[in-house]
């Protein structure tokens, strides 16, 4: 391998749509898609005389983001107007934070466990700042002569996370985006839906002559705008790496410029502006008071931050004995892990609790296309979950009966044992009642009984099935096994 001549330097600006109910400065719903221009009002459509009114939840989520990334939280920050004309920007300016932003100077340790061949192990990425701003609407380029404007997205709250130029390869940048998404999903800050543009990123990239140990003056950088997948971040950065290297090696001067990425060709192109460098004319937005809060507000949010994801995963797979896959799903969201733990506080069976969440509850959420959080709160709070687990554990109902009655359980107020009882499906653990079913099954299948006795003990499950069918799944499987063995081996 030849010694690298150039070192790649990358910094990211990540725009994250955050999970609030309403938009940043008005009360329109903050939701993706919908019929065009159906989620707009005087404020987010820039009508004359409309005024912004800041969403407090957005402030709390920005602080939460800052705390998760180890930032200093500014108790006083300011919204500014950033002026430019574009049809998807209804006010003629974006409301963003310049100085001071809500969070500054954080850090994120990039885990390189999943990056085979990484040059560096677990590099620390410094966060320069995090600020709040509103998203623009969307322009659709419909025909050769016309574009269409939909303002449903206008006013969606964003946090912009700006890193220092601390990445040294496109792969690191893409991996950061993956891990950042995991973290923000876990903390319920964003829905993390890349296809819907919930996380988008600008890549600032330059090359400089390679020195052992790094360092040296930065080269001329280009900024590739608006990348919305891990692959496009990596591809765009790799393309730029190569383009800049070719230019530098052939002695061409690079220009500091803004470029766009074309995912089809995998290349970037410069957007030539007739007007030279943009002049955004930032100044404090006179319609909005400074964002001011106390340290105790920050402390409350910090106290509500969940256990770090990795620590939780270790605890689940170790102490609680869950499988890695199970633990992985549970710790994918702090809300889900919290749900699991709340139920676990009421009864002692982690595996069964996890099994019920993963095997019954989550599939039902997907079937109904609802957020687990909604179903948890409205239909199946931790106490009911814990109670259901206890019923399984005590042998009152069988897993199969639970499976059959789960939807009904969610939709009603009857607990599982009541539902089972009403249908005569309470698990039968009375040996005299089961004994009859066992004897009947053996009598009805003399050939299989003979084979079993002849050594084909695998047939035991055949008999279990027969008994289960007769008892409609309500027989206690352990007891059936025991009774079958007793009578077959007699």
């Amino acid at each position: 391998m030849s010694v690298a001549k150039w070192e790649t330097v990358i910094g990211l600006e990540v725009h994250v749509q955050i999970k609030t109910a309403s938009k940043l400065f008005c009360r329109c719903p903050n939701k993706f898609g919908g019929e065009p221009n159906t989620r707009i009002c005087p404020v987010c459509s820039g009508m004359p005389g409309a005024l912004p009114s800041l969403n407090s939840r957005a402030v709390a989520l920005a602080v939460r983001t800052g705390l998760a990334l180890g930032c200093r939280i500014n108790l006083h920050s300011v919204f500014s107007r950033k002026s430019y004309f574009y049809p998807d920007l209804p006010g003629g300016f974006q409301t963003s934070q310049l100085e001071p932003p809500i969070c500054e100077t954080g850090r994120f340790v990039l885990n390189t466990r999943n990056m085979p061949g990484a040059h560096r192990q677990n590099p620390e990425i410094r966060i320069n700042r995090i600020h709040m701003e509103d998203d623009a609407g969307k322009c659709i380029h419909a025909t050769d002569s016309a574009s269409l404007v939909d303002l449903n997205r206008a006013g969606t709250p964003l946090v912009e996370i700006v890193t220092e130029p601390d990445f040294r390869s496109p792969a690191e940048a893409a991996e950061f985006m993956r891990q950042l998404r995991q973290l923000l999903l876990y903390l319920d800050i964003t829905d993390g839906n890349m296809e819907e543009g919930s996380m988008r990123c600008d890549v600032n990239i330059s090359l400089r002559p390679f020195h052992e140990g790094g360092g040296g003056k930065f080269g001329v950088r280009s900024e590739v705008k608006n990348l919305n997948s891990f692959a496009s971040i990596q591809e765009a950065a790799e393309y730029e790496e190569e383009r800049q290297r070719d230019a530098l090696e052939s002695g061409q001067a690079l220009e500091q410029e803004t470029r766009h990425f074309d995912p089809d060709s995998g290349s970037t192109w410069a957007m030539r502006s007739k007007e030279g460098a943009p002049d955004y004319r930032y100044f404090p937005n006179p319609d909005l008071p400074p964002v001011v809060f106390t340290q105790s507000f920050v402390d409350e949010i910090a106290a509500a931050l969940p256990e770090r994801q990795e620590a939780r995963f270790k605890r689940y797979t170790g102490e609680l004995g869950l499988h890695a896959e199970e633990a992985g799903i549970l710790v994918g969201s702090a809300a889900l892990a919290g749900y699991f733990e709340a139920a676990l506080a009421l009864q002692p069976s982690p595996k069964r609790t996890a099994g019920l969440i993963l095997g019954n509850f989550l599939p039902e959420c997907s079937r109904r296309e609802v957020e687990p959080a909604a179903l948890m709160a409205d239909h199946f709070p931790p106490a009911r979950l814990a109670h259901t687990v206890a019923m399984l554990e005590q042998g009152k109902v069988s897993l199969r009966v639970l499976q059959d009655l789960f939807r009904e359980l969610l939709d009603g107020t009857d607990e599982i044992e009541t539902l089972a009882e009403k249908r005569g499906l309470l698990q039968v653990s009375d040996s005299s009642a089961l004994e009859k079913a066992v004897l009947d099954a053996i009598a009805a299948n003399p050939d299989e009984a003979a084979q079993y006795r002849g050594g084909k003990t695998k047939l035991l499950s055949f008999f279990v099935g027969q008994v289960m069918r007769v008892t409609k799944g309500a027989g206690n499987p352990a007891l059936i096994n025991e009774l079958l063995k007793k009578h077959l081996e007699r």
Partner: protein
Amino acid sequence: MSDLYRMSLAALVKGLKNKEYSVTEAVKSCLARIEATEPRLNACISVLGEQALARAAEMDAQGPPAANAAEAAPLWGVPMGLKDIISLKGCRNTCASRFMEDFVPFYDAEVTARLKKAGAVFLVKNNLDEFAMGSTTENSCFGRVGNPWDLGRVSGGSSGGSAASVVAGQVFASLGTDTGGSIRQPAAMTGCVGLKPTYGRVSRYGVVAFGSSFDQVGPLARNVEDCARVFEVIAGPDHKDAASARTDLYPDNLPEQDCLDKTLEGKGKEPGDVLKGVRIGVPEEFWGAGLDAEVEGCAMSPLKKLEEHGATLLPVSLPSQKYALAVYYIMSSAEASTNLARFDGVRYGRRARQPKDLLDLYYSSRSQGFGEEVQRRIMLGTFALSAGYYDAYYRKAAQIRRLLRNDFDRALDLASGGCHVLLAPASPKTAWTAGLYEADPLTTYKMDLLTITLNLVGLPGLCLPAGLGKETKMPVGLQIMGRPFDEAAMLRLGAVIERLTPDIGLPGALDGALDER
């Protein structure tokens, strides 16, 4: 009943509640007056005769609310005007701009909603300088407003239409907006009472923005009490305007609801009782060079009366005042340049015909839609914010704005012997002849010198007639500058001054026509 329009708002309300006459009669009286005075006065952009009569009929059918009703409706049946920059749902809101000629808002301004609830009947949308930028109401795409005292003179601006409309008897009160004197200066020039509230006292929601950190909505009326009655209705916190003040938190605040009581106290009590212990500041920077002699003489006479009745006059200095004009024009224009960016021809308003491309759409729509003064302010504001100039102009101006506020805080610091209010004229000249400064924007700007400062510092100002100038026989206005959220005390003092000052009456310039009818 045809001269109902001459009554005070307070008297009208009383008569309506006692069913001495109907709302329909009040509206008809005003409509007749409008017909007699328009279009010569040109104070109205829209006259909402049909709607107002329909509303009046409804109200008459229902009858006045009971005295103890939960909905007090303090303005029940009062015909009112709105400056045509304040949104009234379903009625075009032109801002006197070609850009907005056909724009019909689908929402009410907060002040409009509050007046509706209080029972006001909207009769006219008043003419103004385009987007409230101007001091004469000559910058209107609907033509200039005449002064009811002399139609050849300007009415002041930018709420010149509201002021002229009130003085001419077209409506009992109107709302204006004041960014640099746009309520007080036309009130002074037409001889009515105008109040610019403390910044944050009245919601700006639904009022087309000019200078967001300067704009306040306020009433214009024919006397102090009428002004207070309207003010009480529109004042108070609104969650839709983030700059709206939680006035209940202010340490020595009198709540909005006390303003009328205080005004009546000023009207009813002996001046000596009200003025005892009141310290009135006379800021030298507002009385110095640049004032016409007739203005100085006329505006000074109420001060002497106040002193005779026991108030203490104190000389006061506001040394940073000399920078006020520059600070004002930089900061208000900067804000305006971004506030007017939304007028781009994409979602509403004027769009140039067959634009070549998107850029052409922007350039042509805006250049065809905006008048010269508006374009000049956009240019000045854009310049002050642009790369390389921000620190020298915008930021520097904001620092001096702080110095100005410090000057006022010192002058009005009661704890260390400061004043309760400051008094000054509202304009260096009485209303001048139309077209006088047309080609000279800087000189016109300088005419705002006495009113802009309060907008910079965010403090309230009440302007009321001091008399007629000796030379021009035109009204001269006196301005009461008060402590933050202290409108009640200013209104009370205003009511006292009103009593101590000879009534200038209503202007005669328009009445020939009425008599001929």
